[in-house]
């Protein structure tokens, strides 16, 4: 078997038999999709990670938990949980891709040669698809707000209640089915209209393929997003003291509200003794880096067997951290503080949606150049959401294509139908965003904890840290310290388990009770189970096909 030299970093006889086998299988699959450039894959992974959480959730959590003290557990979690799990996902993905698989069921199948393993990978299809169903709706809100600011339709006055009423009517918070009622709001002004635009954009990008769609889009959207954030940041940092009658409400005090140590006379050690803050910081890192979604695995599977993953994964994570800490951390809370003061910001940061879609629009309208800044801010949120949502479609497309043998048009059509049905469900049950909230809890939180734990255990205990380390080191442009393998094997699963258990104890009870009391919550959970069953059936069919076409053999390089 001949392999083109461009696939090899070393002379062929320097590779051991399993690696030669992996290279050969990868070469056989070269008719499939691949990334065009290294910058493209880094920007795509960073784009998948950078989302609304960077600009709304992170500042809210940091301000809520002891100001600057939050950053200490935050960075501890980044190095003990975030980066190690990101390396795990990149390594598992490239390992599976080198053996011809791009979907998580296929990747798990070759990592753990057990009949059960592809079915565990079905979670990697359920999670991004189900999250897409509601995330694209929020993306539509961002696009709608950006458009309305640009068109001058958001000048609702200085009262926050007007923005709350607008948000309720726009999203349909007052009753189920309100988002489909066009008697009080014109269709072209409705959230449904903007949802439709986002839906089409996502599917056009995914139809164009990995390189010509996702990569092409992320290569201009990510720099554009940073430019938009810098414009808003420049405006916020030059606000000074907008109301001379309230001299305390100035930018410096706004930054202090976000970053100060020693709130309420507490010492730094007393602040760090807050266990809840450590849990929230770990959760923020976990959700922010988009680990546990199965998306990074899927993206990394399109790399070549010798492509670097060590530096690329760190670069993508660093891009996400820059957007979150250096941009999100300096914009949202200081801007809100300058116009609302301490009490207003504390109330606003308790809800991400309230902060983003009620408080900030009012703040933008109050500041000079606010119409322009508001349009730019919501456009940046829209770009952040779009680069994330488009990544959620690729894992399912990969399974439909390699598992069922469907062509691009058929797989995109089928996935479009499934996700449209899910989004229609979420939009219909819009009262108090109950369906969205339920899906976010069970899929966007519970399931991703479970999948991340499975991935870490597969890498640390099934693949083994020696083999895993070799996989990470192949083509690596930075050296990953060996102790990281022990963190992955012992610390990360324990860290995940503790965070997950405590978080479940605090929040799950209310959500479980709701299933029995609220029929909409019960229906939403039923819908999630339906999508999971569909993912399992697709996986079963794929396994049958894979067993027929290329049954698993003991890996010996031949």
């Amino acid at each position, binding site marked *: *078997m*001949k*392999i*083109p*030299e*461009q*696939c*090899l*970093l070393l*002379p*062929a*006889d320097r*590779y051991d038999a399993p690696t*030669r*086998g992996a*290279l*050969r299988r990868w070469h056989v699959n070269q008719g499939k999709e691949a990334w065009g*450039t*290294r*910058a493209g894959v*880094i920007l795509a992974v960073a784009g998948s990670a950078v989302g609304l959480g960077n600009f709304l959730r992170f500042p809210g959590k940091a301000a809520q938990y002891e*100001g*600057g*003290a939050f*950053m200490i557990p935050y*960075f501890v979690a980044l190095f003990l949980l975030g980066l190690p799990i990101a390396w795990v996902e990149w390594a598992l993905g490239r390992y599976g891709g080198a053996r011809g698989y791009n979907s998580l069921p296929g990747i798990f199948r070759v990592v753990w040669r057990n009949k059960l393993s592809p079915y565990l990978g079905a979670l990697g299809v359920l999670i991004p698809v189900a999250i897409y169903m509601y995330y694209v709706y929020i993306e539509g809100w961002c696009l709608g707000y950006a458009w309305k600011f640009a068109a001058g339709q958001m000048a609702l006055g200085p009262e926050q209640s007007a923005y709350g009423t607008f948000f309720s009517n726009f999203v349909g918070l007052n009753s189920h089915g309100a988002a489909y009622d066009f008697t009080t709001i014109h269709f072209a002004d409705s959230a449904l209209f903007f949802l439709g635009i986002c839906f089409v954009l996502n599917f056009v990008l995914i139809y164009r393929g990995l390189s010509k769609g996702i990569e092409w889009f992320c290569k201009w959207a990510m720099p554009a997003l940073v430019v938009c954030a810098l414009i808003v940041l420049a405006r916020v940092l030059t606000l000074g003291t907008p109301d001379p009658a309230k001299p305390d409400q100035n930018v*410096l*005090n706004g*930054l*202090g509200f*976000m*970053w*100060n*140590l*020693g709130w309420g006379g507490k010492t*730094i050690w007393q602040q760090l003794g807050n266990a809840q803050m450590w849990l929230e910081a770990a959760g923020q890192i976990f959700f922010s880096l988009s680990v546990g979604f199965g998306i990074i695995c899927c993206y990394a599977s399109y790399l*070549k067997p*010798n*492509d*670097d993953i060590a*530096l*690329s994964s*760190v*670069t993508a994570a*660093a*891009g996400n*951290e*820059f957007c*979150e*800490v*250096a941009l999100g*951390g*300096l914009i949202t809370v200081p801007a809100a503080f300058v116009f609302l003061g301490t009490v207003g910001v504390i109330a606003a940061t308790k809800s991400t949606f309230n902060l983003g879609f009620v408080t900030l629009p009012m703040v933008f309208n109050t500041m000079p150049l606010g119409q322009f800044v508001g349009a730019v801010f919501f456009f940046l949120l829209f770009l952040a959401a779009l680069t994330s949502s488009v990544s959620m479609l690729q894992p399912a497309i990969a399974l439909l294509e390699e598992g069922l043998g469907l062509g691009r048009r058929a797989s995109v059509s089928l996935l479009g139908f499934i996700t449209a049905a899910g989004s229609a469900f979420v939009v219909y049950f819009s009262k108090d965003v109950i369906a969205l909230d339920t899906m976010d809890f069970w899929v966007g939180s519970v399931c991703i904890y479970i999948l991340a734990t499975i991935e870490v255990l597969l890498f640390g205990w099934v693949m083994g840290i020696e083999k895993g380390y070799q996989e990470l080191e192949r*083509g690596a*442009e*930075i050296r990953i310290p060996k102790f990281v393998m022990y963190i992955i094997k012992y610390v990360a699963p324990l860290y995940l388990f503790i965070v997950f258990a405590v978080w479940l104890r605090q929040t799950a009870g209310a959500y479980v009770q709701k299933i029995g009391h609220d029929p909409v919550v019960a229906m939403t959970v039923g819908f999630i189970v339906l999508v999971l069953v569909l993912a399992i059936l697709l996986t079963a069919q794929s396994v049958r096909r894979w067993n027929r076409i290329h049954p698993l053999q003991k890996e010996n*390089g*031949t």
Partner: protein
Amino acid sequence: MNLGGWIIMIVSVGFVTIFLGWCIYRVVREPEAPQKLHAQAEIDTKDQD
């Protein structure tokens, strides 16, 4: 804004900015990997199939 706030803000923002800058520098500095080059000769891996 107190002294602790200034320190934690400068360290946090500075760290993520330098971290990203270092990563970008390392990515850009590396020469284009051989597998990105085109029209390379094929070599025999000595696999039997």
